[in-house]
């Protein structure tokens, strides 16, 4: 019978043996992920381990890294010894690199925003509401990065050749964006198209190329960052989507440890009890089959609701389009400075009112699962917002750009600025006035309503809408990320204050991780890809205005790149750039072959995933069978023991637990501890 200590010693020896061939970085990671006490981990990482075994008076076995490495060294020949020295050099380099990475992450953590505030929010409201604020903080990082890039590469050079601003400044510019701001670095029209050259040193700065490359770099980084985040979320949250996730087990085992406030914890316990009761009663209820009539009524209710909601969305889009056209005509004849605010005002009103109308459809439609209701509402709101942005882009690119106005890019920039600002003002008014009123109504007037709960989906959609506008507007208004930065900053504090004053913690479990994955996907798929399409159409199809901006006079925006390639092809040192352009970027064959390769790889990975799903199912069945086998054998053993005991009353009888343990040892099925080691070794192994 193996003693606990002996088993532990064997496990540690196996662990050390598996850790030796790893690089030191992977070794540290593997040790850190071990579910062992600090003392054991420290000993492992230091490389010195004292194993004492008491039975049979065994001497202390003392294993050290250096001893093993030395043993290996003495067996090697001379030139491999030199290789070991190189390896040791590399080890010390990697250690220094690790230390610098640690200090860098320390610095980043110290400037991490709002840690304390997020802790308080999480303490009172839990992880689900916290996910909204984390999303806001994540979007803020995008804008900070875009602003830094724009500022360094296009705004600062423009400042050095800025012309004097002859317009007057009135306070109204903050709202309308016209007037004084038209001739500042805020808009496209102010930027020069010349090659900036200071002094006779000859270092020249081509503003055209700088503009297009900076915006391109901004958007490319956003693209890869979004892709990377989306992939990480998908990997963490969609491991086994086809296996039905049990409802009540997750309620029991996923208690929210971030909630620390006393009242919030009590409320959460009460809400959890209610949810458990609902879950239990769903079980007890028979699955009532609906009659044909009821099915028909329900189906027709769904159809009517969908038709009405789509109709409302299309009607709003048409209204926005005609209003925009009418506004353009109106502004040509009259010059009322406030009239430009009409369109943003109407759009914000639509964004505020129509989702409320959509949520009243809940009274007509009845869904079996409340989750479906949330999804349907979400899809309708997304459709509304995306179609409004779509119709506005169509209006901008088709009407404004071809209208023959003097500086149409600046006009589009101003439009986007006004939309963004109006949206922000509405959101502030909603936070301070609307939610406050709702609290008064809920607490004093109609006390049965109570406090409202934070609608995470609606708020996140608003953030996505604003960010889409910012991305579209970056080309026409390079200062827009800065403005959005300030707005997000203010919005964080206003939402926080309103949350603390006017809201109660959520009553139902909200699947925060899955919803966040969905929202990031949303940010990527209709939002960012739509932005890319719009900008692609702008650059490849539209004619820049003739006398403002960095691309004035060119037939198309893209001609700046064409002429650059032409100038490069005359210089012998840069012919490789021209080659890459002509044969890789500009060639159809290359993209065809690339697409084919990507499709083949996708298909192969898809088949591998299918195979793995089958494997998981088979292994799952095998686990069930093994469990049944184990039960059967244990029963049999105990029965045999009973028979033997009846025959021979004085023989040794094992307890059931000891029967299990000896059965496990005999069959070689792993116990808890061994599996712990096995899994940690798998985790620690460097991924190919």
């Amino acid at each position, binding site marked *: 019978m193996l003693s606990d200590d002996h088993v532990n010693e064997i496990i540690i020896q196996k662990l050390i043996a598996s850790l030796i061939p790893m690089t030191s970085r992977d070794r540290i990671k593997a040790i850190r992920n071990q*579910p062992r006490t600090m003392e054991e981990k420290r000993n492992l990482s230091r490389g010195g381990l004292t194993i004492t075994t008491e039975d049979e008076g065994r001497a202390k076995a003392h294993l050290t890294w250096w001893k093993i490495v030395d043993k290996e060294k003495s067996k090697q020949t001379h030139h491999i010894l030199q290789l070991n020295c190189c390896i040791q050099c590399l080890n010390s380099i990697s250690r220094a690199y690790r230390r610098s990475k640690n200090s860098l992450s320390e610095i980043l953590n110290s400037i991490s925003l709002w840690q304390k505030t997020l802790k308080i929010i999480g303490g009172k409201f839990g992880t689900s509401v916290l996910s909204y604020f984390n999303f806001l903080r994540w979007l803020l990082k995008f804008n900070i990065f875009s602003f830094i890039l724009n500022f360094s590469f296009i705004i600062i050079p423009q400042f050095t050749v800025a012309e004097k601003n002859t317009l007057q400044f009135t306070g109204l510019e903050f709202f309308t964006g016209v007037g004084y701001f038209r001739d500042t670095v805020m808009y496209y029209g102010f930027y020069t198209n010349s090659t900036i050259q200071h002094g006779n040193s000859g270092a020249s700065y081509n503003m055209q190329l700088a503009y297009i490359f900076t915006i391109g770099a901004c958007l490319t980084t956003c693209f890869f960052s979004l892709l990377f985040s989306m992939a990480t979320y998908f990997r963490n949250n969609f491991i086994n989507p086809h296996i039905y996730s049990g409802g009540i087990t*997750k309620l*029991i*085992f996923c208690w929210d*440890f971030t909630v620390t406030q006393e009242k919030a914890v009590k409320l959460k316990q009460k809400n959890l*009890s209610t949810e458990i009761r609902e879950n*239990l009663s769903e079980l007890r209820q028979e699955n009532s089959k609906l009659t044909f009539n009821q099915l028909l009524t329900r189906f027709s209710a769904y159809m009517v609701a969908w038709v009405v909601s789509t109709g409302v969305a299309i009607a709003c889009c048409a209204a926005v389009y005609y209003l925009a056209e009418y506004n353009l005509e109106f502004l040509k004849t009259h010059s009322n400075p406030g009239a430009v605010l009409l369109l943003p005002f109407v759009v914000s009103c639509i964004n505020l009112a129509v989702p409320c109308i959509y949520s009243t459809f809940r009274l007509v439609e009845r869904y079996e699962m409340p989750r479906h209701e949330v999804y349907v509402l979400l899809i309708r709101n997304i459709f509304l917002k995306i179609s409004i942005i779509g119709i506005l882009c169509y209006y901008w690119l088709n009407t404004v750009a071809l209208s023959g106005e003097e500086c149409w890019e600046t006009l589009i920039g101003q439009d986007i600025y006004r939309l963004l600002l109006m949206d922000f003002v509405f959101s502030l008014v909603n936070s301070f006035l609307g939610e406050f009123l709702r609290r008064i109504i809920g607490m004093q007037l109609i006390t049965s309503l109570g406090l409202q709960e934070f609608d995470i989906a609606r708020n996140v959609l608003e953030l996505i809408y604003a960010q889409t506008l910012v991305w579209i507007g970056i080309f026409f208004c390079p200062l827009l990320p800065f403005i959005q930065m300030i707005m997000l900053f203010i919005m964080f504090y206003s939402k926080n204050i309103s949350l603390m004053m006017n809201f109660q913690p959520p009553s139902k479990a909200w699947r925060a991780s*899955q919803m966040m994955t969905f929202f990031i996907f949303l940010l990527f798929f209709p939002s960012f890809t739509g932005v890319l399409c719009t900008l692609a159409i702008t650059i490849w199809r539209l004619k820049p205005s003739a006398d403002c901006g960095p691309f004035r006079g060119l037939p198309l925006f893209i001609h700046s790149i064409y002429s650059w390639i032409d100038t490069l092809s005359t210089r012998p040192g840069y012919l490789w750039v021209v080659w890459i352009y002509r044969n890789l970027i500009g060639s159809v064959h290359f993209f065809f072959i690339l697409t084919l390769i990507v499709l083949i790889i996708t298909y192969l990975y898809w088949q591998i995933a299918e195979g793995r799903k089958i494997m998981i199912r088979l292994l*799952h069945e095998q686990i*069930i069978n093994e469990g049944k086998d184990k039960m059967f054998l244990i029963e049999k053993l105990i029965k045999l023991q009973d028979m033997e005991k009846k025959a021979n009353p004085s023989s040794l009888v094992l307890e059931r637990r000891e029967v299990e343990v000896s059965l496990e040892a005999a069959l070689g099925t792993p116990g808890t501890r061994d599996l712990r080691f096995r899994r940690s070794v798998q985790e620690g192994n460097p991924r190919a």
Partner: protein
Amino acid sequence: MGNKQTVFTHEQLEAYQDCTFFTRKEIMRLFYRYQDLAPQLVPLDYTTCPDVKVPYELIGSMPELKDNPFRQRIAQVFSEDGDGHMTLDNFLDMFSVMSEMAPRDLKAYYAFKIYDFNNDDYICAWDLEQTVTKLTRGELSAEEVSLVCEKVLDEADGDHDGRLSLEDFQNMILRAPDFLSTFHIRI
């Protein structure tokens, strides 16, 4: 970061950095939190590795833990002798596992131990009853509690032996992607 602190030797701090998910600054901040719990008990000089344990009552009174229904189990699981009194090593270990950088398997392992009230490496029906009672604070009747335990065992018990092993628990956690964000204490 200069070596201005006199609490730990350089090697001790490096070892802590290697064994937990915290940076040097966070380790120092955690040490001062630990020290604040019992200023007379915890010395300001750990270079001699003093053997100091802060009693459970003080640990359980921390604002991050004081209203958590499982605070006693958490302290017991991470303490050296299973009695809830924690040394600095245990303290750092606990918050390192509960931080957002710990991987899912590590958290699942410790969550399993927390919910395993009788420490027999399995979550049996009695453990589940204790868990549900702590979670609902007496709101559910005894019959409802046993119904819940039955349903949980039905859903999660993979090898049908009437209790949850670590593998069953980890398998169930895989289907609950929220676990990583909810099993998290911010300090």
